């Protein structure tokens, strides 16, 4: 973006509320900040109404902190819990109908490429498991098939959280939830594997308990999407409210999942691997 859209006009700067001035002075736009700098800059989400201990909001917060160029990032989302934090971000955020996020993003990305042929505008989809894997699965996959240069980030809480805890396609097999009163009777949808088959150039599976890796993956995904094609990140963001555990246990649950069904995984095409090597100079990110 032109830095000017968050530069207050000189003669009116004094009337801006403090949180806006804070954002102008200490926000991440146009600066090279990342997850490691959290706590030292004004985050682009001001506040949000998520439940205490919410994994989704932590996922949103970490992913937003890892955006390589927030000043030129547009987020497309869908109804669901993540909406509530995303709508408070100092970014352009769109939310239309349930499940159509990757279609909206396809149109948006292409139009921005027409209007700004010399600029990188990062179009990032951030949506829940219901939006991406159930109701929007075809639109998700088709944006990958078509090779759209967008990044798709799933905030996977393994449930329809916002409507009160129904089974989703990403719920683990056997889990008893609303609309699966006898337990879910099929496996978690292998979206990650599908992403590879469907033509994503890069994919990663990570939990909120590994913020550094999460940051690295988001960064890679967005930079690769700019150049090469679709990328996919699946973030495990457990939900204390609907999965009925204490809010303080969110990270413990995420960590356990990281050792079980949510072990860190990455895939990339050869071309993507080359780009990553060039970009990062072979640095490895290790989580404690």
């Amino acid at each position, binding site marked *: 973006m032109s830095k000017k859209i968050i530069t207050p006009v000189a003669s009116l700067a004094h009337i801006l509320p403090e949180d806006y001035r804070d954002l102008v002075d200490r926000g991440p736009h146009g600066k090279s900040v990342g997850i490691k700098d959290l706590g030292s800059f004004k985050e682009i989400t001001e506040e949000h*109404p998520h*439940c*205490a201990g919410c994994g989704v909001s932590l996922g949103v917060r970490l992913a937003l902190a890892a955006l390589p160029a927030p000043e030129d990032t547009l987020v497309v989302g869908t109804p669901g819990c993540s909406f509530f934090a995303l709508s408070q971000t100092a970014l352009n955020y769109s939310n239309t109908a349930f499940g159509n996020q990757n279609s909206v993003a396809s149109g948006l990305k292409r139009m921005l490429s027409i209007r700004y042929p010399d600029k990188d505008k990062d179009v990032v989809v951030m949506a829940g498991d219901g939006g991406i894997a159930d109701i929007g699965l075809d639109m998700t996959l088709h944006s990958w098939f078509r090779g759209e240069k967008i990044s798709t980030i799933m905030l996977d809480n393994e449930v329809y959280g*916002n409507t*009160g*805890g129904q089974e989703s396609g990403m719920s683990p097999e056997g889990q008893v939830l*609303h609309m699966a009163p006898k337990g879910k009777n099929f496996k978690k949808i292998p979206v990650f594997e599908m992403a590879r088959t469907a033509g994503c150039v890069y994919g990663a599976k990570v939990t909120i308990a590994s913020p550094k890796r999460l940051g690295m993956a988001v960064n890679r995904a967005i930079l690769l999407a700019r150049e090469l094609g679709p990328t996919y990140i699946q973030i495990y963001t457990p939900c204390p*409210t*609907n999965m009925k555990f204490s809010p303080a246990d969110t990270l413990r649950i995420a960590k356990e999942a990281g050792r079980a069904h949510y072990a860190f995984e990455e895939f990339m095409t050869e071309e993507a691997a080359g780009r990553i090597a060039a970009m990062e100079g072979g640095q490895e990110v290790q989580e404690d």
Partner: protein
Amino acid sequence: MNAMEKTFIRMSGLGGQGAVTAAHILGSAANKDGLESTVNPFFGAEKRLAPAESYVRISSEKVYEKGEVLYPNIIMIFHPHVITMGKCYTMPFFDGLQEGGSILINADAPLVSDEDLRHLADLKAKVYYVPATDIATKVAGSELSTNIAMLGGLYAMRKLTSMEALKESMVERFGGGKFVASGTTAALDDAVTGKFAKVSQMIEKNMELIAAAGAALTEFPLPGTKGGE
């Protein structure tokens, strides 16, 4: 609007405080006492600590109208943030209060600004407060019982239902079986009932809580009234 005996109650709190459950218990109790009543929650999205409001209409005759109570006789404020941070569907929190109406606030002293107090005095309103969360924590061992303490305050303030009906209604609500709570409420229910070995123990504690909260109810003098400035 007409002569029948009619009390409309608005309960404003934050998600997880049990305003919806309190409304349910109160409405059911009125129903058990042979009165007519309806209970309406108004959810935004179900988020813990997001504003939550519920409405109870109690009347001697059949109540038809639905939706939020715009013109309440009684307003119950379950959380100070409703007043201090505007976490409320209605701004200001007393908007629409009928003349001669009452307000019950969960706090150890009312948090209302002088200007608002003057406005309430003009309305001939009464303001009460009760430290419901503190009492709930002390007596029932959990802040999750704030709603029951608020019902205790209400009972001491105005006897809209009998104590027996309130008790019966709580047994029904927490006793399992018939009642079905929606997602988030169900999760919290588990947390509440999980604290007690038996439902009967929980009900006993709740009755104790109602009494304790009732005893702690205090009326706050408004400017221009007896005891006020």
